[in-house]
């Protein structure tokens, strides 16, 4: 398993969140992409859609199975990563460099409650 980036926050559903100004980037962790296998399709939420925390939104499809993505914090979809439409395998190549979508007007207190890198690593050890 490649390293867990220290500057990100993590959900127990294996999503990561990175803050950039007043935007929150959301992606899936290495654990998630490993479990999925080769990703062949990413289904995005709609831009402008308001998402609740833990709401099942996008779906990631690997060769063998579909896996639901749970939005980690409340917010509004600002944009989705169109690059993954043509090259979904980028998630397998580097899941931390390729976000799924970006949230604006997100809930900062929910962000604070996500796991930091060391807690996420501890959590992974319990699985």
């Amino acid at each position, binding site marked *: 398993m490649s390293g867990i980036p220290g500057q990100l926050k993590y959900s127990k559903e294996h999503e990561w969140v990175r803050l950039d100004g007043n935007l929150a980037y959301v992606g899936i962790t290495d654990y998630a992409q490993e479990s999925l*296998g*080769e990703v*062949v*399709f990413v*289904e995005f939420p709609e831009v402008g859609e308001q998402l609740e925390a833990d709401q099942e939104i996008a779906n990631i*499809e690997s*060769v*063998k199975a*579909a896996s639901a993505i749970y939005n980690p914090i409340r917010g509004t979809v600002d944009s989705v990563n169109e690059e993954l439409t043509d090259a979904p395998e980028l998630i397998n190549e580097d899941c931390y460099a390729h976000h799924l979508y970006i949230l604006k007007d997100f809930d900062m207190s929910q962000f604070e409650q996500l796991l930091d890198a060391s807690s996420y690593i501890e959590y992974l050890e319990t699985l």
Partner: protein
Amino acid sequence: MKKCVLHDMFEQMDNVRMTKFGEFELPLHFSAGILQEHRAVREHAGLFDVSHMGRIRISGESACEYLDYLLTNDVRKMIDGQLIYSLMCYPDGTVVDDVILYRLDGKTFFMVLNSSNIEKDISWITLDNPHHEEAGLITVENLSESTSQFALQGPQSASILDTLGVDTSSIHRFSSLGSVSVSGVNVMISRNGYTGEDGFELYVDNKDAHHLYLSLLEAGRAFSLLPCGLGARDTLRLEARLPLYGHELSDEITPYEANLGIFVKTETTDFCGRTALLSQKEKGIERSLRGFEMIDQSVPRAGYKVFLQEELIGKVTSGMKSPTLGIFCGLMLITRSSNLKFNDSVEIEIHGKRKRAKVVKTPFYRRGGS
């Protein structure tokens, strides 16, 4: 859990992903991944351990007649060494299993069964079918746990076997040789498979399984062969429109509905399910297995509902993103009254949303282009 002989060796290999398949734990893919394994079989060669399949030997003076009654295809026409695909049906015409039958000699046959159906099939053949009182005259031996089965598939398969001293030019499609030496091991070989490519299946005693598998892997190295898992097996068979029991076939689906009528020989002798199938054909077959391709990009999966406008007309039996063609496609079992032509649109409900798909010709992939 059941384990094939090579299970422990596979588990030790780098980056292998094991998966549960019925009662078995099998490699889903090896280090190359499903897409590369799929491509290797289409372009070069791939090696599958399919020992989880069931293998039985049926022998006796009346074995031919007995099997001819149990199977929809014509067993009486078979010659020594030949193999046929057939359905084994219940009296109501639905399917117990789809099998490959080998005629070894006039009194000895060998049958390959789906792994999840082994116990059910043996019970059907020996006890449960309407002619079971004649079962006393035949012997059924279950070889599933004492033998292994490998599939060497892809355009380079024959060349690989040739380097191991096999004269593959003497093994024609859908025929077998009972006793061939491959790398010093005694093997039964047949020319067939489940991928839409040229290929061979090899049957061997468990004691020689490791040696044979590793010899094939080693000989294949020069031909870019990859070890392949269940994932690629599934995408390969679906591109070639080969049915999978539990998806395109089941005890709720008849061979006619699955468009496998070519393997049902109603014009010859009686077989189990014949009356029901003739009657279905006469009354009109209500459902049909059709190929579709997604217009709206999304991955269709087995069980998803298919709609024509507001009417629910059936469901997806298998779906995927085709590794060879790059399209999202699959098979669906739908009502025939919808009378759909090629390129007509249907909608498939995927994660709660309707996505458009169109009816297309199958197989999706045909060897040598189509």
